[in-house]
């Protein structure tokens, strides 16, 4: 089957299911007794198995299959959730992720999963200490207990057809005595008896493994026979060194055929199969009530298409502007009315298109819980990660860029922020450290905060290092506020860890985080109290494609200054301008702010008549300010950010361009370049 056309869908969905798996596994770790969670994981693994088998990725199918078996055993209380079991399942899901990524990158999706499969098999076979719950059997015939048996469609069909033709289908579980010496021989004897009685269609473990004695002390055989259960059981029990034999009819949860009454057996550990057909399972009402996720009414759209849509819409906006001016000229009532309606509708359309490009920040956050869990283990620390506001939406373009800086910050918080359990107890704090990741909207910005209750920034140590590295001089160091000191750790060439760890000390410091965030038009700040913890705050623009600007005029040219950089606008008198070292400055609310004449920088020419008053825009970059002199302000506007293209790479003090309502191009001022 040509599956190429489904590949993209397969990848997307696989990732989604793996993500669901991971999330639920973390949940399960917290609530090991909540079987509804196990059901969720099972469902995800099951779907993944089906998809990968269809696409021909056998290793994925194989591994998910084993995972599913283990989950099913958990689901049916055959084995209890322990952290060692979860570790193996986590590892499996990591391996699955690797394989999916491999496929995405054009690989074959093959990976040696033998070790994991073996481990899963062992868990499933009950080799884990708390494994088999045998005591509660006996009365549990009516319950849906499930063993490791999974029937594929073919086997199900065989069983149901045989039943229709008057055969019996039994699952025979044989438990050998612990002191049994020749397991393989006993297996052979059991098989010999069974083969005379009917046809064996399935065994667990596989025949090969049974022959090689690769099983613990029990195995299960599915047989189709004319004989009845008691007869068969009696025959099998004649084999010596047998602890017991249990027999029961094959059952499918979907009940495609009549379920015979369960045979009596002294101690039973009845085995029922997980259902292969998802559709049928979904149809069962009890299952549905367990499901917490309802199907989303969404479709997948390639981001490129949204970009095209956006571009087309921008052209429409430009034409709308023209139409408006024509209508204003012609003064035709009908034309005016139509134009107004069109303006309103296109305004709504703009909101919708912009919203379509928004993605919940969850898509970035959801990989963190697992990362934190792993890191905490590696570092031997106890850390609880709280995520607040994962539903906060950000433009796709920002989302794509923000992942790595956040990973860096979290690693930093875990490694350098939160102390080891012993230190925490000594400091009178709870043993478990808390790291909170918070996202929220405020105005035109999205804030992402990372707060930890760790050691905070050690002022003396940071200053010492900063002076050593020549980042600040000793004189200046004295005058710095705590906040300024904390922010020193963002300077390039800074690393406070005494020893380099592979968690967060690999030579690239937090300065990379800072520059990435600034390149996104964002801003990062740190607040820290020694001994109480730190708060890293990242401020990001809602979107990179539409920004709010102040349009300013210089002679005949119009420039746009991003509102995110603007503190305020002011009109100053010539007498307010002071001279300091060849640099003109103004006194702005008690601060000395350098004056930058944009008309000189951009060569627009100065007004012919000397001005009495000057219009200035006060902009900031971090803590530094500058006052940009322009001819006049036009007003505030939302604009679509466009790049100047690859021909004009890095033009001084310009970050891009936009198309105004009249179709003209206006340039966007890069305030960061104007402030030293």
């Amino acid at each position, binding site marked *: 089957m040509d599956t190429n056309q489904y590949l993209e869908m397969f990848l997307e969905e696989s990732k989604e299911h793996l993500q669901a798996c991971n999330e639920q596994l973390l949940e399960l770790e917290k609530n090991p007794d909540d079987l509804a969670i196990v059901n969720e994981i099972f469902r995800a693994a099951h779907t993944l198995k089906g998809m990968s088998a269809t696409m021909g990725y056998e290793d994925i199918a194989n591994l998910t299959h084993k995972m599913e078996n283990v989950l099913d055993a958990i689901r049916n209380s055959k084995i209890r959730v322990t952290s060692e079991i979860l570790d193996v399942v986590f590892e499996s899901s990591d391996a699955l992720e690797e394989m999916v990524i491999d496929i995405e990158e054009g690989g074959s999706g093959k990976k040696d999963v033998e070790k994991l499969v073996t481990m899963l098999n062992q868990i499933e076979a009950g080799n884990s200490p708390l494994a088999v719950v045998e005591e509660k059997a006996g009365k549990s015939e009516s319950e849906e207990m499930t063993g490791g048996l999974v029937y594929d469609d073919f086997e199900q069909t065989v069983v149901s057809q045989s039943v229709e033709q008057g055969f019996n289908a039994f699952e025979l579980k044989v438990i050998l005595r612990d002191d049994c010496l020749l397991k393989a021989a006993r297996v052979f004897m059991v098989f010999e008896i069974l083969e005379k009685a009917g046809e064996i269609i399935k065994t667990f473990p596989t025949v090969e493994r049974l022959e090689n004695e690769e099983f613990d002390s029990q195995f299960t055989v599915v047989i189709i026979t004319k004989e009845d259960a008691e007869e068969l059981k009696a025959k099998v029990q004649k084999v010596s060194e047998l602890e017991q034999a249990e027999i029961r009819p094959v059952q499918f949860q979907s009940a495609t055929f009549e379920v015979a009454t369960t045979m009596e057996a002294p101690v039973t550990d009845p085995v029922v199969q997980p259902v292969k057909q998802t559709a049928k399972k979904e149809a069962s009402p009890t299952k549905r009530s367990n499901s917490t996720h309802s199907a989303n009414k969404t479709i997948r759209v390639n981001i490129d298409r949204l970009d095209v849509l956006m571009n087309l819409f921008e052209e429409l906006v430009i034409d709308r502007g023209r139409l408006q001016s024509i209508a204003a000229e012609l003064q035709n009532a009908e034309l005016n009315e139509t134009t107004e309606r069109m303006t309103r509708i296109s305004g709504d359309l703009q909101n919708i298109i912009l919203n379509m490009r928004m993605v919940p920040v969850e898509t970035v956050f959801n990989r963190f819980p697992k990362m934190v869990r792993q890191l905490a283990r590696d570092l031997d620390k106890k850390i609880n990660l709280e995520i607040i506001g994962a539903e906060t939406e950000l433009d796709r373009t920002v989302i794509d860029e923000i992942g790595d800086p956040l990973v860096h910050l979290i690693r930093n918080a875990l490694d350098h922020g939160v102390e080891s359990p012993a230190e925490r107890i000594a400091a009178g704090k709870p043993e478990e450290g808390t790291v909170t990741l918070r996202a929220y909207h405020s105005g035109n910005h999205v804030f992402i905060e990372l707060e930890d209750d760790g050691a905070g920034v050690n002022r003396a140590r940071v200053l010492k290092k900063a002076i050593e590295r020549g980042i600040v001089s000793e004189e200046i160091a004295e005058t710095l506020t705590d906040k300024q000191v904390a922010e020193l750790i963002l300077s390039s060439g800074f690393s406070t860890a005494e020893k380099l760890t592979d968690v967060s000390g690999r030579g690239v410091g937090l300065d990379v985080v800072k520059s990435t965030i600034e390149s996104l038009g964002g801003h990062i700040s740190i607040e820290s109290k020694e001994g109480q913890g730190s708060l890293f705050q990242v401020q990001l623009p809602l979107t990179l494609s539409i920004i709010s600007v102040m349009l300013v005029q210089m002679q005949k040219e119009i420039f746009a200054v991003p509102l995110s950089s603007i503190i305020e606008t002011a009109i100053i008198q010539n007498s307010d301008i002071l001279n300091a070292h060849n640099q003109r400055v103004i006194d702005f609310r008690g601060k000395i702010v350098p004056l930058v004449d944009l008309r000189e*920088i951009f060569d627009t020419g100065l007004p012919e008549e000397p001005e009495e008053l000057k219009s200035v825009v006060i902009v900031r970059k971090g803590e530094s300010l500058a006052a940009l002199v322009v001819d006049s302000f036009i007003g505030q506007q939302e604009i679509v950010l*466009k790049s100047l293209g690859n*021909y*004009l790479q890095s*033009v*001084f*003090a310009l970050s891009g361009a936009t*198309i105004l309502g009249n179709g003209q191009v206006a340039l966007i001022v890069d305030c960061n370049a104007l402030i030293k």
Partner: protein
Amino acid sequence: MTAITENNVMKTIVFRLLDKEYAIEVDVVQSIEKLLLMTITRIPGVPSYVKGVINLRGMVTPIVDLRNRFDLPEMEYNDNTRIIIVNLENFDVGLIVDDANDVIDIPANALESQPEVVGSVESEFVAGVAKIEKRLLVMLNLDNVLRPIRNVNADEN
């Protein structure tokens, strides 16, 4: 530049600068616009031959004046002045030319490597010359004419 089609002719767009005719492959040309219908936004701090950017159907496209680029005397733009929009590998650029109104097939054997002196146009910009009947066409090496402009710094000011 010298990709020859199967029947050994190259389709070119021919344009005029001063009194000389130049040719570029038709494949790289996206469209030809009338300059007077366009509003050019000047960009500060770039070489003088970059006249600015225009809004080309929603795309911000830089414009290069080829007369400036080739150090030819400037001329007022008039009704004949055209902007030829070319798509290079990584970017689109508009070229301001005096006139553009011809498409000519250049046979492969008519293309010669450039003679020692071709007017005042610097040799690195020229890929070759072709003589078609009595016309001499200069094939341009656009990759050299349109090298990306980078690191234009504050010292420009």
